Each structure stands twice: as structure tokens, then as C-alpha cells.
């Protein structure tokens, strides 16, 4: 009874929350549409549709509004055909529909040519880098964090150094990583590991310390000790919080991705973005950046849902 009452209250909240969440995405989109489709808002450029008598104008050329006005005046004076154009935004601000098209084309009709990477292939490469970087970091960081948090001695021994090391900016190790690990994926994974690992140890050690001591004491009076205590009480006890920490840390790993991919030979989504920017295909650039956001946000959403399934006893998972 109490559960159902509580449940209904939470439902209404959930609906309101979803509504607000959608709104929080629609609002910036609305601003973007306004800037893109309402010519009076910004549109500092003119897109030439007919060069008229101006010899250096070409179709699809973007010129400054002032310059276009001057040329119109010039042509009027010299009685030549007037150039025609429509107000437009700078090249680096494509309209939502352009980006949507680029997004669609990027995934559905990726280019066949080999010198320009396709978006899915680039993304897949990036995801792999993140995966390996985060996996390696976690394989070291999670056990070390748990042990540091459980045994004061271990914590005191390694945490001061880690505390120091985490202030060293991970990208600064780029050159070193290339020298040691070559120019391909090795150094990129290393940067992600360096960027994540040290925070991970400290955060997880802290989480472990927050486990109620009476739980450990209860387990000890029930005959659990040493490693058994670690595996039967400490780890399950912190698991929901550990899971949440890992979600946050995975987000951090993504923020290191772009820097990591610039090291050695550029690769992955970063290379795709820099290439497209070089050809001034800014619609593709935006599509790629958004895809990173969608993947990151989507993964977190899925992991959050999964967390509620995995830890039915953890009341705090519900509140997210």
C-alpha cells in the first residue's frame, strides 16, 4: 500500500521530469532554428544565387552584406545586371536541417572514397579507444581504489603520490606516450588511462571508505575475515556507488578522447572532424560532435536504467 502510494507520487514526478528534460533539449534547438531560419535575427552574409555583372561573384559564394550592397550599387551605376542573393549565416553555422541531412548521410550513405574517413568507421575507432582505455584504467584503478579504501596502510602509501600525479595534465604525456608506444592506438589509449586512472583510484577509495563500518563489524562477528570480508561485504556493499562512480569516470574518459586522438597519427572521430573542417563541411562537423554527445549521453542513460535493475536494494539509484 505504502509502496503503491509512493510509486504514484514518483510517477507524476517522473512525467514532469521527462517533460522538463525534453524541454531542456528543445530550448537550445529553438534558439538555433531562430538564428538559422529567421533572416532578421543575424544573417551577416549574403549567399550569391546569381552573380549578375560582378565578375568575381560566383553562385553559392558567401559575401559580406556590406560588400554585396557596394557591388549592387556599383552595378547600378555601371548599368550592368544586378547580382542576386539571399541573407545567410556564416559557413560555420549551418542550419539544423543541413546538420540533420549530414547526420543522415553520414550514417546511411557514408562516402566510398578511402582518403576521407566515414563517420561510422571513425566513431567505431573512437569507441574502441575509449573502451580499451577505460578497461585498462578500471582493471588497475578499481581494485587499487577498493584496497586503498579498505586498508588504511595501503591508502596512506599510494594516495599522496596519486594525488600529486592527477594534477599532471594527461595530454602533457602525449609525446612521451608516442615515444614509448608508437604512433598508432597505443599512445591514445595511454592518454585515456592516464587521464582516468588517478582520479579513479581516489574516487573509489573514497567511496569504499564511506561504507558503513558496522556492516564490516557485523560481518566480522559472523565469522568473515580478510579477503572473504573484501569479497562478501566490502565489494557488494559499495557496488551501487562504485557503479555510479564508473559512470561518471566513463564520461571523463570521453572528454580525454579528442586530445588523445590528436596524438601520433590523428584518428577516429577527431580526424573525421578535422578533415571535414578543413573542407569546410561544417554540417558534418556538427553532426560528428553531436554524435559524440548522443553516444555519451545515451550510454549513461542506459547504464543508469541498468543500475536500477542491477541494484534493486539501492534506494539512491531511484532518485536519479
Amino acid at each position: 500500500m505504502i509502496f503503491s502510494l509512493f510509486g504514484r507520487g514518483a510517477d507524476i514526478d517522473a512525467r514532469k521530469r521527462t517533460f522538463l528534460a525534453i524541454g531542456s533539449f528543445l530550448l537550445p534547438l529553438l534558439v538555433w532554428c531562430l538564428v538559422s531560419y529567421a533572416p532578421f535575427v543575424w544573417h551577416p552574409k549574403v549567399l550569391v544565387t546569381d552573380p549578375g555583372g560582378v565578375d568575381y561573384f560566383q553562385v553559392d559564394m558567401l559575401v559580406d552584406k556590406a560588400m554585396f550592397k557596394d557591388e549592387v550599387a556599383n552595378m547600378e551605376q555601371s548599368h550592368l545586371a544586378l547580382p542576386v542573393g539571399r541573407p545567410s549565416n556564416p559557413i560555420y553555422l549551418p542550419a539544423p536541417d543541413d546538420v540533420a541531412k549530414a547526420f543522415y548521410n553520414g550514417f546511411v550513405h557514408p562516402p566510398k572514397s578511402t582518403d576521407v574517413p566515414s563517420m561510422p568507421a571513425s566513431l567505431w575507432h573512437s569507441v574502441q579507444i575509449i573502451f580499451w582505455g577505460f578497461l585498462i584504467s578500471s582493471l588497475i584503478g578499481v581494485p587499487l581504489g577498493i584496497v586503498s579504501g579498505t586498508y588504511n596502510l595501503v591508502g596512506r602509501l599510494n594516495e599522496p603520490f596519486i594525488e600529486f600525479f592527477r594534477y599532471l595534465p594527461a595530454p602533457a604525456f602525449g609525446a612521451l606516450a608516442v615515444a614509448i608506444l608508437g604512433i598508432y592506438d597505443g599512445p591514445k589509449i595511454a592518454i585515456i588511462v592516464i587521464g582516468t586512472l588517478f582520479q579513479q583510484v581516489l574516487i573509489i577509495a573514497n567511496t569504499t571508505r564511506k561504507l558503513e563500518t558496522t556492516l564490516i563489524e557485523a560481518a566480522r562477528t559472523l565469522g568473515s575475515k580478510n579477503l572473504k570480508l573484501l569479497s562478501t561485504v566490502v565489494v557488494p556493499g559499495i557496488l551501487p556507488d562504485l557503479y555510479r562512480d564508473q559512470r561518471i569516470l566513463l564520461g571523463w574518459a570521453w572528454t580525454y578522447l579528442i586530445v588523445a586522438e590528436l596524438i601520433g597519427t590523428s584518428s577516429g572521430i577527431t580526424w573525421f572532424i578535422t578533415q571535414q573542417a578543413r573542407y569546410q563541411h561544417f554540417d558534418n562537423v556538427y553532426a560528428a560532435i553531436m554524435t559524440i554527445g548522443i553516444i555519451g549521453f545515451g550510454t549513461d542513460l542506459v547504464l543508469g536504467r541498468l543500475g536500477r535493475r542491477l541494484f534493486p536494494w539501492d534506494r539512491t539509484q531511484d532518485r536519479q
Partner: protein
Amino acid sequence: MNLIEPMLPSYLDQSDEVRARFERIRQREVILEVRKLGKRYRSPQGEIEALRGIDFSVRRREFVCVIGPSGCGKSTLIRILAGLDKHTSGEALLDGKPITGPGQDRGMVFQGYSLFPWLTVKKNVMFGPRMKGEGHDQAERDAKLWLELVGLEKFADAYPHQLSGGMRQRVAIARALVNQPRILLMDEPFGALDAQTRAKMQTHLIDIWKNIDVTVLFITHDLDEAIYLADRILVLKAHPGEVQEVIEVPVPRPRTPGQFNSPEFRATKARLEALIHPAPEPLPEDEQAVKPHMIRFTDVHDNVE
């Protein structure tokens, strides 16, 4: 109505029946022996002597309550006996062997339940047997048996957070008893429960104790609870924690809530009150520092009393 309060008997007077019962208890072997036990804590504010020269023993299937003002070292004492803290002087023997650390021969029930939230009720109870090395099936059989004993077999697959406080404490009791400890140590186990649930749990605990070969050391700060449950009451005083008196409760068994008004009960309670709340005495320093200074935040004429 009886306007003239009849003279209470002395708490030391025992009926023949009660005296015979204590005689029988004294025939039993000593399970727990505490000799000159002392505990000092080192803290940034200097050394704190939490316990000094504690002497007492508990016999098999005796129910002993420990009572005393806040900060007198009740928890410290029980934690030392559970093996969770180390004493700094004296010794504590269980069945003649010194206590050096936690062990399955002692079960502990905490005030805050401290059930494992990630385990179902049944798995919580299975924890001890599993640690002992029992197989899953055997542990499960044991757990079911003890859950039945505390009346929670229907909640075997629930998680602790789905249970009420009283139910949680029942699980904690089952979890401690499933290991069949020699002594059950309980640190204010019913302190967080409402009066009604608390009364139910007290009766239930006596029922369990009657039917199982277990000795109970029970900490409380509720005088009624101590008298209702205990054979003997160990009264501690604070700063430093010392044994003030060991009282043999003259209230006959079986105990019923109706006895709360019996002369023996009231005599014992009067004695406990005299011991624990003596004539006002200067507060210990740390509590002297806490002095509320009342300021009026409402209209002068807006009185509630």
C-alpha cells in the same frame, strides 16, 4: 483508590522461589568471565578512560542486562567482548579462553540492525553459516529454520529496506543465532523501535531465550526493559566506567507485562533510579559546554503555555 503508598519491599528481598532460581543459576558453569577489564582511548583531547576494573561473570543461559548513563562505556564493553575492540588491561574469558578477536561463538546484534542491504532476508541469515563453510543447501535449511523461529519465513526473499524496524531486528537476531553462539551480545537492540514494537520484541526475545541454549548480555538504557528481561543487572557508572552494583532482579519468572506494577519490580526500579540518576551532581565537562541560550523569537503575548 489506594491513597497510602504501601512501603516497598527492599530490592534485595527475594521470594523463596526466586532465591531457589538464583541458586540453580549459580550451579551452572561460567560462560563469560571478565576480570579487571580496562579500556583507555587515545584521542586528540587526551586519554579517555572508558572502562576501569570491570569484574563480573555470566553463567550459562543467564540473561544479564547492562545499564548505565550515556557514555559510561556500555558499548565499549560489549564491543570488547565481541572482539571488535581491544581492551587495554585485564582480561575477558569465554569458556575459559581469552577473547582476542571476533568469533562465531559470540553473536552480536547492533542497534542500527546493520543488515546487509544487498542481500535478501534469507541470504542475510545464511551469511554466518556460509562463512563457517557450510554448503548453500545446508545454510539455506538453517536460515529457513531460524527465520521461522522469528516468524519471518514469509519475508525470506524481501530486502531489508522493505521491512519495518521490528522485522529488521528480528532478522538480525536470527542472523546472529543461526551460528548457535555461546553468548548473544545485544547493544541497545530495541532502542530505535516504538514503544509497542519494543514491548513485542522483548516478549519475543524472552521466548527465544527460553527455548534455545543461549546466554544473553543485553545493553539498554531503559530501566523497565532491563528489569523485565534480566536475571541480573550490571549497573555501570560513568567517568570512568566502573561497575556500580550487580543487582539480582527479584521479580519472579515467567515475566509478564502485568508485573510492571508489582512491588518487587518497583523496588528494583527505585534502586536503579537512585543509582543512575542520583541527586544532581555537576555535569561532566563535555556536557557542561552545551548550554542552550534561549532567545524569544515570538511576540511577547503569544504564549503557548
